[in-house]
């Protein structure tokens, strides 16, 4: 399951680019494309927007690739780019509707009902209703399998904030899901 996902193997995939002078951002994007789209999907809820966000992030980082000197940061950099893209999509959606609308779409709702069991949907709905930071931290941890420092680097917050955010997120999910036993 998570072990086969792209965003899981930062060191492995960076080993090769490290040998080179400059990081090939385009290649990194291509290599991690599926994992990044999946990350965006969990943030946005529908595949089309997820693909679009990754494509845009790809284009932007491509334009600025000369500025990226540190190969160790490359993967965190592209993850951040995708995450930022997701944030703007969510912002645009809620402004367009003139009311808060975290995200509605397919993974969490209609079409996927048949594909995802009731329990999965219940969890995803609960996740959807969390504050943005908690949602992001939980997805990076439990989908991406990232460590606290890696999540910190991606979200631009400190590792200790990551720890407390994950803990609060889990607690909130537990409350929502009635895991009170």
């Amino acid at each position, binding site marked *: 399951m998570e072990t086969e996902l792209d965003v899981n193997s930062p060191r492995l995939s960076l080993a090769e680019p490290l040998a080179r002078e400059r990081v090939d951002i385009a290649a990194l994007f291509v290599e991690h494309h599926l994992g990044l789209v999946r990350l965006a999907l969990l943030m946005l809820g529908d595949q089309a927007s997820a693909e679009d966000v990754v494509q845009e992030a790809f284009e932007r980082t491509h334009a600025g690739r000369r500025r990226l000197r540190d190969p160790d940061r490359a993967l965190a950099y592209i993850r951040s780019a995708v995450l930022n893209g997701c944030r703007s999509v969510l912002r645009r959606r809620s402004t367009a*509707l003139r009311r808060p609308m975290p995200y509605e779409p397919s993974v969490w709702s209609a079409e996927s009902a048949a594909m995802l069991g009731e329990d999965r949907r219940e969890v995803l709905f609960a996740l959807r209703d969390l504050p943005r930071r908690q949602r992001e931290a939980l997805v990076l941890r439990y989908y991406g399998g990232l460590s606290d420092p890696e999540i910190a680097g991606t979200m631009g917050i400190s590792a200790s904030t990551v720890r407390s955010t994950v803990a609060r997120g889990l607690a909130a999910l537990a409350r929502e899901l009635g895991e009170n036993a």
Partner: protein
Amino acid sequence: MSQDRVLEERPRRDRMVEYRLRQALSDAVNTVNAETVRPLTEPRRPSHSRTPWLVAASVLMITVLGGALHGSTQSPDAPETEAFMSNLQLAGVRATDQIAIFLCKDDDPFIRCRGQKAASEVEKQRIQHAVSRLAGVRSVHFEDQATAYLNFRKKNTGDSDLLRAVKPSDMPESFRVILEPGADRRAVPQAVEDLPGVSNIVDSTCPHDWREC
């Protein structure tokens, strides 16, 4: 390792939630796989600015689909159609109904262009010929790099970083196909998708994937 020990010490409640969360996320991401994901396309395409209306369009689609599929089972707070339509207008949904066939450039990262040079004149002629003989095609016109670049600048006037970074030579050439009403939209991409020199095809009415048209 140390994380496992921490896990052991956590209350059962947290472990249950973690388990359910992992399962849910894993199932959710598995709805997207390598076969269905739209491949990355070459940076700096003229259709770069499609995002805002894509978002609006996908929101609309979701609502429509959601409404249709939910039926009477549940439909919590579907926003009203009117609001959606005005949002679509605000977001600048393009009325232009065309299919763009993008062509390979030198060293193009597109999978279809790998190991190839830019589309040659002969390849372009073949592509144009393959399209113009289809039924229901009103017009096919060629868009060169300079025109693509001008359009791109027009669409991205607010983004100075982007405009500084992009040169005319970054833009792909393309054929722009306009169809008669009611024509079979999929016939166009189907006719050219495997021809050498084609990098990718975007139908403005279903920009995510022309196969959904």
